């Protein structure tokens, strides 16, 4: 039995020692995931907390074939989306002051960027942009999946992604 399996078995039996080990092993990484979905870190910690309670409640349903980290990560993403869900319908209204800025066709380099700066950029995106960008670019969802998950049309998902990228590029430009 690998140490991961041992950990999972312990958690299934509800042993507090293993639960704490599991939390300490995955919490920092999962907070890194949740943090991308909220403007403030406190909201992300709320999601992390709810997510871990779900992990411990539903650990019996985890089939030991797939990646355990992937399973936890999926729970964290879904929990984060759930916390947004009640407000989702307000996210995809087009702002009246939205201006179409012409993007110059030039190549960008992102090597100089610090991950903490990138996180701040994502956190400061409008909620709708942030969710779509995270799900598409980082979690690797398709537009169809995003549309289903967020209850919007595929075209909304696509346009939000384009706008999110544009916004991020503007921010990177300003940093240079």
């Amino acid at each position, binding site marked *: 039995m690998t140490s991961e399996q041992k950990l999972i078995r312990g958690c299934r039996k509800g042993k507090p020692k293993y639960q704490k080990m599991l939390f300490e092993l995955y919490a*920092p990484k999962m*907070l890194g995931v949740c943090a991308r979905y909220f403007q403030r870190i406190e909201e992300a910690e709320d999601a992390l907390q709810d997510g871990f*309670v779900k992990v411990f*409640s539903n650990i019996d349903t985890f089939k030991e074939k797939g990646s355990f980290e992937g399973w936890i990560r999926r729970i964290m993403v879904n929990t984060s989306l759930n916390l947004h869900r009640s407000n989702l319908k307000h996210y995809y209204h087009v702002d009246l002051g939205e201006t179409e800025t012409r993007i110059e066709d030039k190549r960008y380099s*992102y090597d100089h960027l610090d*991950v903490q700066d990138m996180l701040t950029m994502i956190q400061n995106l409008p909620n709708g942009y942030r969710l779509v960008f995270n799900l598409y670019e980082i979690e690797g969802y398709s537009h169809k999946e995003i549309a289903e998950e967020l209850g919007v049309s595929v075209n909304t998902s696509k346009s939000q992604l384009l706008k999110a990228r544009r916004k991020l590029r503007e921010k990177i430009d300003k940093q240079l």
Partner: protein
Amino acid sequence: MKTTDDNIGKAFKEAFDDFEIKPSNSVWQSVNSKNVELGNVNHSSLFSKIAIISAAAIIALATIYYLYKPSVNPSPNIIKEIPINSIDSVVTVQMTNEIDVSLIDSTKDEKVEIVNNSTDNKQDNSKKYKAPIIVKDTEDNIEKTEVAIVEEKKEIKNIINPPSPSIELSNDKIVQDEEEHKQSILTNTDTFKVVYGDNPVVCFGEDAILFVEDGFNYSWNTGDVQNRITVSPVQKSHYTVTVTNSKGQESIHVFTVDVDNSCSALFIPSAFTPNFDGQNDVFKAEGRGITQMHMMVYNKLGQKVFESTNIDIGWDGSFKGKLSPETYVYHVDYTDAKGIGHVKRGQVTLIK
């Protein structure tokens, strides 16, 4: 263009691949307490096993002690604690959480009365006050187990139930006792203190506020659970509240809200249709017994389009000779039949 788009996503994905943030300590504490709450935790160490076993033993001992204590050693103090006016009523005494003792007391009390076949109420009362002493005397003769109590209850039922000249009398007595007991719940200041609000009289269409104070839990027949509720009856209505105090004792009170039909709250419609079909052509407030009213209507540009101080005169919807279908805002202040001033603000839509 496309490549830059793809690059930005890729750059972010790579950057966040191994990204970690240390959560604050409170997160694990919350998760852990939630886990305990949901039963996701299973303490199975030797220590906790011992703890569970010893807890069970303590509970068992306590149970045995409580079961036998009242009958083995009936303390006169317990009898004294029961309010005098509730000794003769089984239900009231039960509310004082001294069920075991009270059963003996009250049933025996009745037994004494019935056996004596007393017909005079006054005589009855004098006996009641002596009851604790009688109880104490007979107490010693009773077998000291719960079974004895149950048997005695049966015996008493037998005494009450068989057809004999005294049945009617004793039944009446019981009914009378129950009524006395109901009143004593409301007025019994020794055991239960609750302050009830007045029975209000409201104008038609007005809200009434009902309240109870000094209870612990409140359950209204309207489904509310607060101590203060707002009701809007259209006719004379009764509202029942069950108040529970911190000891679990219950008290029921009925509020009566009377509706005065000679006056009413001001009703202001939210839309009107000035198309001369005879229905809702004029925007006006309605209410009975309104002594004074001042209404102003403004359009969306903030211009005053109508003003009236007479409740019978309404607005036909025209402003500078034109009907404009839009939403207007109104401000009405009025004095009701009781001389109380009110202000109402809202919106009204003109529909052509």
